[in-house]
């Protein structure tokens, strides 16, 4: 029974559930970054951490689950200024709203990180990281631009690796500052210079490893926009594998390190030389196959219609042809292309000479009608058998009336 009939009567659980639903459906509360000082930090034996974030005016209960605590790269302590990221939820049992902290940074670093995330989100929303914008790198770059400090070990690694892997490439170093407040305008000027030079077909922008602050210039918004707008395909190569900068997101390709950029920008010479050798072998094999095929076709032709009256000159020609084919193959195998070409054209001429020429000169070929076998001798056929006689312009069907041996 309610004292106030107009007012709905709820259980504590019902009211709390309502509040929880309200809070947890709020978009802002679902993903917040809160700055404050840690107090009452307690790491429970379960591994979960419980603490309060406070400033002069308010306090906020916080929970951080074991896995998130384990992922922290610093040790939280009371009195420490931090930025905590997470969502606000309600713990019904104690009727308490609290921040479920997913990640936390010491405030100084945290602010840099926050600026980074803000810029990243902004550029991402503009579509600057869109995979569709990314251009493929040229397979065999002719002119490679390298924008970096002209004194760093990173540059030496890049130059050494590229000139070792792919000597046909021409390398252009464009010196720039890669650290400090003057670095972004210097890097931007270097990119503009590369664009103006107009010969480069790929551009590496980067520097060797350093602290987060050292690498910070690669998170500059104007630099990011210049990289995104650069007509030359770009590779970012900043710091170590674990360092990510805005430049990495806008570049066409991110290389984990400057050395890795050098390795991905050019193909490997050893691999290419091997491929070239393989091509050479395939050429020789294919040509040999082609020559053998021609030879086989010729042999087949000769075997089928081989001439019944071996005549001295023809014999000589056939022998020559055999020799030529042999020599053509040998020439090919030894890469003696000129000789092979001469021999092949001689072969072609002989091929043209062929049986038809012989038939034209008045010789004919006799074949048994029953099986088409060529009659070379009186022993090959008997009187009464049917025979086909091949002459220059057709065939004569005939019957053998008599067989006589030629007198010697």
């Amino acid at each position, binding site marked *: 029974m309610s004292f106030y009939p107009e007012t709905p009567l709820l259980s504590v659980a019902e009211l709390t559930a309502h509040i929880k639903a309200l809070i947890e459906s709020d978009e802002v509360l679902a993903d917040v970054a809160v700055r404050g000082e840690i107090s009452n930090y307690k790491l429970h034996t379960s591994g979960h951490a419980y603490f309060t974030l406070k400033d002069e005016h308010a306090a906020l209960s916080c929970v951080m689950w074991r896995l998130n605590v384990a992922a922290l790269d610093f040790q939280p302590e009371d009195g420490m200024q931090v930025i905590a990221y997470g969502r606000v939820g309600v713990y019904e049992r104690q009727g308490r709203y609290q921040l479920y902290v997913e990640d936390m940074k010491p405030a100084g670093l945290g602010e840099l990180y926050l600026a980074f995330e803000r810029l990243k989100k902004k550029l991402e929303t503009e579509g600057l990281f869109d995979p569709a914008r990314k251009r493929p790198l040229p397979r*065999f770059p002719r002119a490679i631009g390298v924008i970096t400090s002209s*004194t760093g070990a990173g540059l030496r690694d890049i130059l050494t690796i590229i000139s070792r892997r792919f*000597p*046909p490439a021409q*390398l252009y*170093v464009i010196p720039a500052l890669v650290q400090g407040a003057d670095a972004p305008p210097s890097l931007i000027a270097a990119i503009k210079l590369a664009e103006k030079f107009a010969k480069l077909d790929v551009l590496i922008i980067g520097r060797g490893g350093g602290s987060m602050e050292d690498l910070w210039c690669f998170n500059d918004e104007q630099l990011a926009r210049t990289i995104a707008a650069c007509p030359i395909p770009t590779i970012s190569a900043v710091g170590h594998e674990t360092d990510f900068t805005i430049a990495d997101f806008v570049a066409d390709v991110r290389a984990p390190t400057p050395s890795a950029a050098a390795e991905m920008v050019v193909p490997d010479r050893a691999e290419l*030389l091997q491929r070239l050798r393989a091509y050479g072998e395939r050429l020789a094999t*294919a*040509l040999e196959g082609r020559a053998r095929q021609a030879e086989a076709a010729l042999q087949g032709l000769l075997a089928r219609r081989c001439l019944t009256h071996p005549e001295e000159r023809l014999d000589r020609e056939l022998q020559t042809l055999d020799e030529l084919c042999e020599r053509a193959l040998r020439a090919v195998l030894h890469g003696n292309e000129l000789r092979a070409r001469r021999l*092949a054209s001689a072969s072609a001429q002989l091929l043209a000479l062929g049986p038809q020429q012989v038939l034209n000169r008045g010789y004919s070929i006799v074949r048994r009608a029953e099986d088409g076998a060529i009659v070379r001798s009186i022993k090959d056929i008997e009187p009464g058998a049917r025979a086909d006689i091949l002459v220059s312009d057709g065939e004569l069907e005939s019957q053998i009336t008599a067989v006589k041996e030629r007198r010697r």
Partner: protein
Amino acid sequence: MSEHEELSFEQALKRLEEVVQRLESGETSLEESLRLFEEGMALKKLCTEKLERARAAIKKLVESQGGTIEEQEFDVSDLSAQE
């Protein structure tokens, strides 16, 4: 062969790939096959030579006062000396 001298490495390699494929198709005459073989070997030689050249040329690009771009010699050994 002189027709190939102006080719870039990439163009020469691409042409070589075409030549190999065409020759392997077995559809060419003996005469054409020999011509392709010759061309292919010349391209292979060209590519190999380009790859075996001792080292890539390295230059430094600098913008002068007047806004023109200068290509300056760049010596990698200087780089090591500076460290």
